[in-house]
């Protein structure tokens, strides 16, 4: 069933009787060519691109709970490709391009909204770093714009220019960055994949891998064994737990990241703002809520909730840069599990087990990567070779010394 304005009108006039479930609720089959573990944004996107680009139709996505219930359902919705390093920038730029055509590709309005992202600059050293980054972005075919303090004052007059502990000295803008209605991404990919025959199997937990002679034959699940030619894992914060079932230790730690939304407010913020001297970034949703966040709590956690010090730290950053939000109220805070990798960059790679593939280590930046991650993982699963934009995302880069460390913090995941 195609969605359209016409269809919405027709249904409205005929009592909405014609809407069908957005995706089926199939029983698992005995065997698939490809099984993807994880019904989050990345897993569902992988399934979609496997079916739509790589001609794979005997594909299942296995999800232990409900699809879209992980980080794609609880993030700050930002998309951007403002990366510095060559291992990352082409990948994220590819992702941004996929976002730009997503709605037409999926026939689902995920409200991709390129209202721009602005990273504020507060010191000369920061400016040097952002100039280097902006140049890297442009040299990789993305867009970047260095703004003066005066230009920022014009665009965002309500920022704290006059009483700031760390004055705003400029900014690096990416106009093509923006936000997306996050839940709709999961639903849109699920619906599109389902329409091409992908089985989305919810409430089905993987309990183990069946490996014989170094080859993965399928997965044991709470609903029985499911055979698979290839198995792809895309379970973000649960990566270590899942891959331990295959005997693997990963270069990943799971950490909690909190995010926040205010009560609905009349529009004040057109784009995304990142405060460069505190831990705070913010955008405003189409419903009017200020959606904001900051640093991870900083300790290993699977608890999906954080603590007050980081809440306070983030709000301090908010008040420092936007002192007019003091009387706006924080409505809800939540925590998600981040698969923090050892250099802050992801892994999309084979494993030492034949037929078993891994996608993870997205840190707190997985949402914006969703389309490219799905695409690149589909490519790897279908062709058994890395996608051209994801060649650096190898497991063995730590062994060989080819880390992709955007922040330069080294092998301490909570600092990325």
């Amino acid at each position, binding site marked *: 069933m195609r*969605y359209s*304005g016409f*269809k919405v009108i027709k249904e409205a006039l005929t009592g909405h009787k014609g*809407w069908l479930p957005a*995706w089926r609720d199939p029983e698992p089959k005995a065997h698939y060519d490809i099984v993807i573990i994880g019904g989050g944004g990345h897993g569902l996107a992988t399934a979609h691109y496997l079916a739509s680009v790589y001609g794979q139709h005997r594909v299942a996505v296995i999800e232990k709970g409900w699809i*879209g*219930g992980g980080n794609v359902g609880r993030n700050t919705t930002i998309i951007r490709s403002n990366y510095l390093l060559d291992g990352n920038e082409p990948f994220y730029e590819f992702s941004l391009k996929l976002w730009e055509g997503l*709605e037409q590709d999926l026939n*689902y*309005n995920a*409200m991709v*909204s390129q*209202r721009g992202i602005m990273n504020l600059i*507060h*010191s000369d*050293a920061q*400016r*040097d*770093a952002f*100039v*280097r980054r902006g140049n890297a972005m*442009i*040299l*990789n075919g993305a867009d970047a714009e*260095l703004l003066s303090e005066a230009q920022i004052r014009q665009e965002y007059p*309500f920022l704290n220019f006059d*009483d*700031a*502990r*760390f004055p705003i000295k400029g900014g*690096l803008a990416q106009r093509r960055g923006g936000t997306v*209605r996050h839940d709709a991404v999961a639903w849109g990919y699920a619906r599109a994949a389902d329409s091409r025959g992908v089985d989305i199997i919810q409430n089905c937990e993987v309990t183990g891998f069946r490996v014989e002679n170094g080859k993965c034959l399928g997965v044991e699940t709470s609903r029985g064994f499911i055979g698979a030619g290839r198995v792809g894992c895309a379970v973000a914060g649960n990566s270590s737990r899942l891959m331990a079932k295959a005997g693997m230790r990963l270069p990943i730690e799971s950490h909690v990241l909190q995010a926040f939304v*205010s*009560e*609905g*407010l*009349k*529009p*004040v913020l057109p784009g995304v703002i990142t405060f460069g001297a*505190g831990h705070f970034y913010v955008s405003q949703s*189409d*419903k*009017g809520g200020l959606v904001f966040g900051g640093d991870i709590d900083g300790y290993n956690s699977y608890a999906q909730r954080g*603590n007050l010090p980081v809440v306070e730290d983030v*709000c*301090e950053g908010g008040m*420092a840069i936007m002192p007019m*939000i*003091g*009387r*706006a109220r924080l*409505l*809800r805070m939540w925590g998600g599990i981040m698969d923090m990798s050892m250099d802050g960059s992801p892994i999309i790679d084979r494993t030492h087990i034949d037929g078993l593939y891994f996608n993870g280590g997205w840190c707190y930046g997985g949402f914006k990567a969703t389309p490219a991650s799905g695409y690149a993982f589909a490519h790897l699963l279908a062709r058994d070779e890395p996608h051209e934009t994801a060649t650096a995302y190898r497991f063995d*880069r730590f062994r*060989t*010394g080819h*880390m992709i460390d955007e922040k*330069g*913090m*080294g092998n301490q995941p909570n600092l990325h």
Partner: protein
Amino acid sequence: MTQNNRLNGGQIDRNTTLNFNFDGKKYTGHPGDTLASALLANNVRLMGRSFKYHRPRGPLTAGSEEPNAIVELRSGARQEPNTRATTAELFDGLAAKSQNRWPSLAFDAMAINDRFSNFLTAGFYYKTFMWPAAFWEKIYEPIIRKAAGLGSLSMQADPDEYDKGFRHCDLLIIGAGPAGLNAALIAGRSGAEVILADEDFRMGGRLNAETFAVADLAGADWAAQTVAELSAMPNVRLMPRTTVIGAFDHGIYGAVERITDHLATSPTGKPRQILWRIYAKQTVLCAGATERPIAFENNDRPGIMLAASMRSYANRWATTPAQRVAIFTNNDDGHRTAQDLHAKGVKIAAVIDTRPDAPSSMDYEVLQGAQVADTKGRLGLTFVEVARADGTNRTIECGALGVSGGWNPNVQLTCHQRGRPIWKEELAAFVPGGTLPPYMSVAGAAVGTFSTHGALKSGADAVRKALGLKGRAPAVPQAEDAPVNQTPFWYVTGCSRAWLDQQNDVTVKDVKLSHQEGFRSVEHLKRYTTLGMATDQGKTSNMGGLAIMAELAGKSIPEVGTTIFRPPYTPTAIGTLAGRMRGKEFHPTRLTPSHFWAKERGAVFVEVGNWLRAQWFPLPGETHWRQSVDREVLATRSSVGVCDCTTLGKIDVQGTDAATFLNKVYCNGFAKLAVGKTRYGLMLREDGIALDDGTAARLAEDQFVVTTTTANAARVYQHMEFVRQCLMPQADVQLISTTEAWAQYAVAGPNSRKLLQKIVDAEFDISNEGFPFMACANITVCGGLRARLFRISFSGELAFEIAVPSRYGDALMRKLMAEGEEFDVTAYGTEALGVMRIEKGHAAGNELNGTTTALNLGMGRMVSKAKDSIGSKLAERPGLNEPDALMQVGLRPVNKDDKVTAGGHLMNTNGPVDAAHDQGYVTSAAFSPTLGSMIGLGFLKDGGNRNGETLRLVSPVTNLTVEVEVVSAHFVDPEGERVRA
């Protein structure tokens, strides 16, 4: 205007009249009123508009769970959007505006949406606005965004202050209703340190809203008497107007105390609100319960409210939403409202009870087995249409309808650590269960014990258990103990535009559509329909939605699940969570001992981390910073300059194993460094990347003074402690940061020795022979002041760094400037410091960027192979040692007047300009007054072998392309003769 709907009694002070205005109209009320109760007393039911359809709305509740009556309170910079009229305390001069309407609350043009509601169903926007592709952002979304939101921000900085504090207690009791008050009494009498917090400004909870007696007193009087007794106990702290917003780990609770929100103007010096971090050994949650509505057609008109809230308005606030009211209930509690309002003289049009066997009344008509089928009234309720048990319909005229569908325990705080409530069939409600936050117990209505007696007893029991009190339990005060009769009745069959989430306009129809389209789990339901995502977090709406979904899915309610309640319990001002950390106080400001001297000299300061450092010292007539900086550089290089380098991290390393320890943390060797000598050291992280550089001076066999860069001081100290405590716990070595203990100054330039000789006490020989390059010593200056002297140079000149105890820093600076007059001594700031270090090719923060190795920095050979040090092994990985690895180089523009930009990328002169052909990048750049052109440092592929090559420096983001020549990074004195002079 008179208060037409004012009843007798109530807990308001009728002796005082308060004036207020709403949407520009003037009204009066009394102390004790909320904005909502005062408006109702003035016969105002219409207080807001809903989010999507802009339906007219009045208060649904009388408390913090209110979804509808939310307004913009106050004006100017203190304008406070989305404020619940039901909890806003009335004060004289209060001004409030309705929100989300245009041009007025009574006539809202956007109410047109309601006509099109059939098109604007749940999730409609996911299915349309996709063609043409560009239209979403250009046309559709701007329209949607314009309509978004409820209240508006003032766009001015919040003028109020906020504060934070810590409190500790043996027992935290959350909620001061019957359970909480009785719990506090028993705990207080036991001598325990108790905090009793309640969100309301009047403690007592439902006792204030009911006519029940407790221990032969009116409930409200018993509450007042109990509060009085508690306030006399020194070990009990009463915190009214305090909302416990979250239950965090290990018994830490966040609580917001409203200090001045109930006052017209804040007394000076008083914060508006305080965020308390309460550390509680035990907690008893007595948060009560929230009445739940019944969904029926057009159940959202102003005047339709929860029955118990209607009772609260009558009993506590002596007001009624209308003079003629009806009740719609499925339980006995609804009848109480009818009785109480009847007793106050309000006409009860009818009690519509879904139960065929509902109790009848002498005072008013009870329609048994009846249901509300529909309602009428554009801006407020006028009629309800009742479907009677016999199949006939009846129209009842009334201005208000109280609705009661039973009660839901307030389990929110029990879920903040991801505990899930459990379904209790006999209550048809979720109650706390499963895993509670550690050290928390729950009592009273919050655990499903709804009778007053039950609540009193349950509070007592919980406290006795929490505090481990022995002995006979004290008698529970006499109170009603009516059995709970709560059977599920969620919605009237056949209803469709029946509101569940009144603020977000989620109706029964939307839940049905959500089910039809496969969004059936509770999380999908919530996200697809936005049910429960309004400012009330679904306190009155979630259960109805869940119940309907369960029925459609053929499952039980617990099978469908419950959404996770998250902090905060009620929305919390961002300003409160930030406290005082805003504006200039956002971060602490660190000043060096000579800061005020620099200020006197007119220095321009720059933020360096939390430090403020002098950036340059403009002289009269200098109009551009470059003039000042160039002068400072040239003066230093030609005679002598002084720079405050106190901000460098300083770490004292002592112990018999101090040298062994430094040998481990630095990649180069320190074991053989002689006493009285200083050595440059490079520290690696264990992954082989450079962490920091600095010097270590051996002042004694067992004492070193290590310096770090300003930026990395804390991290290096932490790293060294890790090595000491975790990797070498047996070693005899101690560390202490002495950054704040010593003021340190670089004295640089050919005349630096001469200047220092004037202040260094005569017994210390600082001649080139007596104190050669890299020497260090404990000395005295100015006739006996202890000092440390290091002959080290960052500028490339003959230079020293001299350190004195911090309290002498200012005096030393003044002394150096005075004694230096004969050499035309110059104070120089961080800019000149930066220029000189670039001229000398010294790496700094821009080069030590967390991705560079010793090899990249041109110090590959420094990494000792003769010993093990942190990082030396992983630095050997092939990826860090590729033949064309980036190497630090110097860069000069081919055309002397061209600009060199830090952050520019290096490309070969010919060939494409793109990432694939990137040769490296510029890390630092400055104008060199010594060379008369800009110069730069950068990392270049195979840079060690490309001296003399011409490259293109491209910086598209600053529109720059220039040709640069690769040169030695040592622009000045490459042989290092000056430092040894």
